[in-house]
């Protein structure tokens, strides 16, 4: 087993608030790691520090054993790591297809070929497959801004896969998505994981979603790792029950 991602002693403070307070964990190739924890415990901040959106105050992030702390988000993305944000982020004035092509185009060829090469950066077929896979077929040429919230959320997730990533970090993919679509999404993530061996880290408040999808769960509380283990272990952990599951 290879360690795709390794985070050691990561700290991040904003003025007086310490949002992430010495977090260490790792993710093995092909795993689906769930991250749970109360609101404001630093989950999104942890993602932002791993992916270069924020500069950690201390600590180190390694991808495949290589230190990437301090790299820019697009540089980390080009090393095969993609993400979704907690708040929905699609490009409303581009069509669904254009959103998907955009999401992959910077992984194709060089700067010049993106100017003089094909319009779809050679991603037409891949985008078509992704549209089919995420059930967006009838919406392919609609502006993303005109889609329903749930549909945009699916598109948002689909975009994360366009660059053929090895590691995908999803921040609350299930937030605001209805039950049928949620089951759909879970099934698709599991399929991509099984078929392409993509590794996932998923932040989620929906316990059923986390417990049924993830192979391992990390519990954060107040910026620290409270517990770690299989879904069953975490569920049984006295600390977790006291601090988070609570009922």
């Amino acid at each position, binding site marked *: 087993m290879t360690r795709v991602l390794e985070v050691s002693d990561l700290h991040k403070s904003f003025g007086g608030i310490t949002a992430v307070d010495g977090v260490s964990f790792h993710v093995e190739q092909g795993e689906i790691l769930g991250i749970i924890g109360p609101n404001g415990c630093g989950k999104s901040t942890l993602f932002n520090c791993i992916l270069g959106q924020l500069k950690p105050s201390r600590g180190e992030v390694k991808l495949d054993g290589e230190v990437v702390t301090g790299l820019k988000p697009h540089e980390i993305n080009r090393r095969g790591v993609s993400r979704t*944000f907690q708040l929905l982020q699609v490009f409303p004035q581009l069509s669904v297809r254009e959103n998907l092509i*955009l999401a992959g185009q*910077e992984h194709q060829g060089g700067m010049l070929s993106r100017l*003089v090469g094909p319009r779809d950066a050679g991603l037409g077929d891949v985008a078509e497959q992704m549209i089919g896979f995420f059930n967006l077929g009838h919406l392919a040429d609609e502006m993303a801004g005109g889609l329903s919230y749930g549909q945009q959320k699916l598109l948002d997730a689909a975009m994360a896969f366009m*660059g053929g990533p090895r590691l995908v970090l999803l921040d609350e993919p299930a937030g605001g998505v209805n039950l049928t679509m949620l089951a759909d999404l879970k099934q698709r993530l599991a399929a991509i994981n099984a078929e392409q061996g993509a590794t996932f880290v998923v932040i989620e408040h929906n316990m059923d979603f986390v417990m049924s999808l993830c192979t391992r769960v990390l519990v954060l509380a107040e910026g620290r790792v409270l517990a770690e283990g299989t879904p069953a272990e975490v569920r049984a952990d006295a600390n977790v029950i006291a601090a988070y599951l609570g009922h």
Partner: protein
Amino acid sequence: MTGPRATTRTLWPWLIGLAGLVVLLVLPLGLARYGLYILSMWAVMTIAAIGLNLTLGYAGQVSLAQGAFVGIGAYAGAIATTNGLPFIAGLALAIVLCFVVGWLLGYPALRVQHHYLAFITLAFSTLAFLVFRNEEWLTKGIYGITDVPRPRIFGLSTDGPLAFYYFCLASLGLVSLATWWLIRSPWGRAFVALRENPVRALSLGVDTRRYTLIAFALGSVLGGIAGALYAPLVEFVDPTPFTLTLSFNLLMMVIVGGSGFFFGPFLGALISVLLPEWLRFAHGYYLMLYAIFVMALLAWSPTGILGIVQKLIADRRTRRASATRAAATATFTAEKSS
């Protein structure tokens, strides 16, 4: 069902473009010298506005410096050609100069956005004007550079107003084709991403820094090309046309026509260049009328005239779609009840 709809959607702009082209080719044959001058000015200003539309409309970077780039291009062209160099050399100089200066002006945009960026580009505009006026050894200051020659193209003289008009029109045609290609390429998509959500774009591997600088540089280059044509059109270059007013005018052209629409600058420049002629009867009041028109337009449609057109088309499409749906439901209920 999407088939025919998609074709009409993509066909319309082409038909209108073609009709416009025919008018632009035939109309000038019946025009006098002044009419040709006005039309040539329209072509030149459209090129500059297309550049600003690239930077502002597509890539979302506010700039109040496009007029300064027209000035840089005009001086580059005028200085080169009055010193015996061919037009093409002046044009190349304008392009290179504007690319480099535009690229450098892009750096502040990496740090600040919106009105802060507007202020920085505005300051640059003022700086450029002062250079045009004060650096007499280079620009001849307020006396200006006289007798800027008109180019020979493939051995043909463009001295006459009709020939020069066709030369401007051909240049506009080339610039339009290149821009059309650019905005439909992955670069164009990245520009829009920059405008709509730079944070998300960055997380998808889009090097937003580089694309911002490119957007500024390319937009400025088009300003420079417009300038290199402006100089031989007017045959005289002095600092007065290149004050902030020109930058504001170009901004108005882009916004009135429809920022982020390919044909926006064509329309905006047409209104800006022709309106003073049409409103001649209003004498000194024409600027007031123009100002009132712009205020009313933007209050009604912040996306300019083409924004209105797009909304009308979208409304009609929705109406037609709901009519089809209503008809389908009616048939369905009729079939069920029979």
